[in-house]
């Protein structure tokens, strides 16, 4: 509503007292790559699970995972949706009620697995959404 918007605008430009509204936009380091939402490497090893006798290929695969913060201001490399951009700003103004956007997979790829069944028949099958290719804030 207009009233709330005006109140939030005023609060955003005034110095914070007691930290009840969270840090101001100027406090966020938009270039802090280490904490920003991004893809991290994670390898799932079928060999480590002791499955090399029935899984022919692969020995494992790079599943990866998404981690990091989605905070204001969202940089271009965070692959943020337009909605997430707005949500970070609203979170800044109203952190108790509006959470930060989520850092999650925006692009997932399939892997193919080649394995034996109990009858020694061989199966080659594609499994979707097994590998994180890109992460983003949304």
């Amino acid at each position, binding site marked *: 509503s207009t009233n709330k918007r005006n109140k939030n605008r005023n609060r955003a430009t005034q110095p914070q007292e007691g930290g009840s509204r969270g840090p101001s936009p100027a406090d966020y380091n938009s270039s802090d790559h280490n904490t920003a939402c991004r893809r991290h490497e994670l390898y799932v090893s079928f060999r480590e699970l002791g499955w090399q*006798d029935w899984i022919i*290929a692969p020995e494992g695969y790079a599943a990866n995972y998404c*981690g990091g913060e989605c905070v204001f201001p969202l940089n271009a490399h965070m692959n943020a949706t337009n909605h997430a951009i707005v949500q970070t700003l609203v979170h800044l103004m109203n952190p108790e009620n509006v959470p930060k956007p989520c850092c999650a997979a925006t692009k997932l790829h399939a892997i193919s697995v080649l394995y*034996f069944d*109990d009858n020694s028949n061989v199966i080659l099958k594609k499994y979707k959404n*097994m590998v994180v290719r890109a992460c983003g804030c949304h």
Partner: protein
Amino acid sequence: SNYLFDGNNEVHPSFIHRRLRTHEKREMQKEILSILGLPHRPRPHLSHGKYNSAPLFMLDLYNTISSEEKNEVEGMLEQYQSMYTTQGPRLAKHQENAFLNDADMVMSFVNLVEYDRELSPHRMHHKEFKFNLSQIPEGEAVTASELRLYKECANQVVINETLLLSVYQVVQEHPNREADLFLLESRRLWAAEEGWLEFDILATSNLWVMSPHYNLGLQIRVETSSGRSISSKEAGLVGRDGGLEKQPFMVAFFKVSEVHIRTAR
């Protein structure tokens, strides 16, 4: 240990810095088996601990698909065709390339018949094949299916002959006489010819999947140009006593016809 590190080669602060404990490994196994759609961990029996022709053929297909997944370039079809080799199992032709690109699953099946029939001279020589299709998941439709046999140079006795190789579907078995057969394909071959022979058995495979009680197997018979029945061994067809990499097998391509929703564990 590269799974511990993030893209900057630094250990992510939230990561577990140790090997999995036994119960954690068991949890991982259960969850991944659930994703793969398997009720339990398979326990295959591998003869001599080596791969025979079917796994080798499937590994070729896997390498092709994996390359396509990595590169995601249309030109991978040329690379797939360039892998055609006379050393090992023949790869698919142009039509089969399309089946591979379109398939959700490919399965190869081992021949369950242990021993070739030794028949009296009065009866036709034949070689039997039976395949267990019971493990095919529900909702998978067969889009292509082949019987693959490796033929070496025939016995010297028939080396100069033209052979007629016929593939039959067994329609009904009888205890005291020849089974009722349905001819699927006949093919003329040079006795000296060597290499993989592929026979289309799509219609038969579909019948077996839809009506498993009709799965009575296949028979192949070989005759000389003069109509004399000869054994598959005389014709040069590799059987149980042949090389592992030349064993006969069946391969089928599948496309999923319905969506399966994985229930929470």
